[in-house]
């Protein structure tokens, strides 16, 4: 029997387009040539420069702080917003839904410039705190949507059962609803973290002196830096970290799997 070659061709094509650029980038981070056009020899020189580049590391630190802060804040606000949207179905909540939904669709540049104008109007100096506010603003929408999707599959009779068995509203939320929502909150949080750590447009507007994040730094390096390969090194390091994180989270999920309440 002749096998259909189509799936194999598709697989090869998709893998090539996804991973070839990454392979080229990782290879070039070891290239002695500054331009990456030709292979001139193996070197760790650029990694050395990366380690000593205090500006890149301070930008990286800023990015991590902001992403962590924005994730925490947006998980909190996003989950409460989703709970409210799920629980009540009034005209006010329709407006609420619209307000939460808007940041997902309005152009980033509009959001960036309007946030900057607002901060200037109320006399707030730009800095890490303004970036944190801005990132929380757009991350809340993503967390809300993810948690809301999870809530739509949620069986409300579980809470009624808990209440029936004598748990008060708070305990039934904490012991029953929250653990069941947690995967949704975590995936919303991960989404928020990713969005925050690589946001460029909004961050560009609301960043102030001394608060450059990694995307801002990388963008200005691409255009005007004699140390271009340092970006390749940085990307390679971040890729490795991401892969390790993904592997770790997969391992973590596998451990947890048997303990979930399948039959419930």
């Amino acid at each position: 029997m002749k096998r259909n070659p189509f799936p194999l061709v598709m697989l090869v094509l998709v893998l090539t387009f996804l991973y070839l650029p990454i392979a080229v980038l990782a290879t070039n981070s070891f290239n002695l040539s500054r331009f990456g056009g030709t292979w001139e020899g193996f070197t760790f020189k650029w990694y050395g420069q990366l380690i000593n580049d205090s500006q890149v590391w301070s930008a990286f630190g800023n990015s991590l702080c902001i992403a962590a802060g924005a994730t925490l804040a947006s998980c909190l606000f996003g989950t409460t917003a989703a709970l409210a949207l799920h629980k009540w179905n009034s005209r006010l909540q329709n407006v609420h839904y619209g307000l939460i939904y808007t940041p997902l669709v309005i152009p980033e540049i509009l959001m960036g410039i309007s946030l900057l104008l607002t901060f200037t109007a109320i006399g707030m100096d730009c800095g890490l705190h303004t970036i944190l506010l801005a990132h929380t603003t757009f991350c809340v929408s993503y967390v809300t949507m993810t948690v809301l999707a999870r809530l739509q599959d949620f069986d409300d009779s579980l809470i009624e059962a808990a209440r029936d068995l004598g748990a008060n509203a708070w305990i039934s939320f904490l012991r029953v609803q929250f653990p069941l929502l947690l995967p949704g909150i975590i995936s919303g949080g991960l989404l928020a973290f990713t969005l925050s750590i690589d946001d460029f447009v909004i961050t560009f507007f609301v960043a102030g002196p001394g608060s450059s994040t990694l995307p801002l730094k990388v963008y200005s390096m691409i255009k005007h830096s004699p140390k271009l390969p340092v970006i390749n090194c940085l990307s390679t390091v971040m890729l490795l970290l991401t892969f390790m994180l993904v592997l770790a989270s997969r391992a973590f999920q596998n451990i947890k799997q048997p303990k979930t309440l399948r039959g419930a």
Partner: protein
Amino acid sequence: MKPTSLFIPAILATAILAGCGPKKPTLHLYTWSDYIDPGLVTLFEKENNCRVKIDTFDSNETMYAKVKAGSGGYDIIFPSSYQVSLMAQNNMLLPLDKSKLPNVTAHFEDFYKRVILNPEMTFNVPYAVTFTGIAYRKDKTAGVAIDSWACLDNPAFKGRVSLLNDFRETIGAALKSLGYSLNSTSPDELRKACDVVLRWKKNIAKFDNEQYKTGIASGEFLLGHGYSGDIAQVMLEDPANIGFAFPKEGFTAACDEMVIPKTAKEPTLAHAFINFLYEPDNASRNIQYICAVMPNKEGISKLPDEYRNNPAILPPADVLAKAEVLKDLGANNALYSKVWDTIKATE
């Protein structure tokens, strides 16, 4: 008492205490990426017991948009000359106090005054002067003298030439090749320049602002219309094969300057930093890092030979005399963008 209720005041207390310590003043620079020797920055921090924080932008326009929209707090910004004029017109800059800049007064090389846009230096001190010319492969253009814009038209290089993707630079080069001013606003001269660029376009591989360095370094391009700052760096890596030519008809000079915005929080420290950079030893060190010349007489004379003899960094005086500065043409920019549209649209 729950442990959490102790935890939060503890965090608050630490945050407040940390804020109260002896705080060092911080100088905020807003500049291009990797455009200052980090060693000098550390030295300045030590000498003045302060901290220097650097933020970077990628074009004059984005920097301007941000600062104009009210993002304050930068102490020194490094815009190009034409942007300085615009910022000064919009009342965004602090007039410089010359008494705090003795090194600038003492060491400024007056010869460069003709290639900077604001020679009275009310708001600005020149940081680095660069030029636009033709980078070329010495090894693959043997026998052809690269000394004129006409080389871009040479059929021997067909398909291996890159032109800058910048309407002022490229139309300016065409204007110069015809003997006109780079800042011409005569429709007739611009029409002729348009024809020249269209002729060049048939001979070139592409319009490009970033990748042409790679192309020259690898030998893919034989000629590259480009910025001296970019090419000087490539030349230092491969001095045998790469050259930089200043077309005899004239070429562009550009200057990045240091300005102190009105919203600066540390104007005194900012003056000190500008003065520090004009100290001849520091100037010489920084020129070597950025591969572009700061108009500092003693600083230039302290440069090692390989830098001083590199024309892309330090063009000889008779060559420099042919440089012309791009001026901001205001409403007349539209004339250039119209010509540029025609050039881009014509096959």
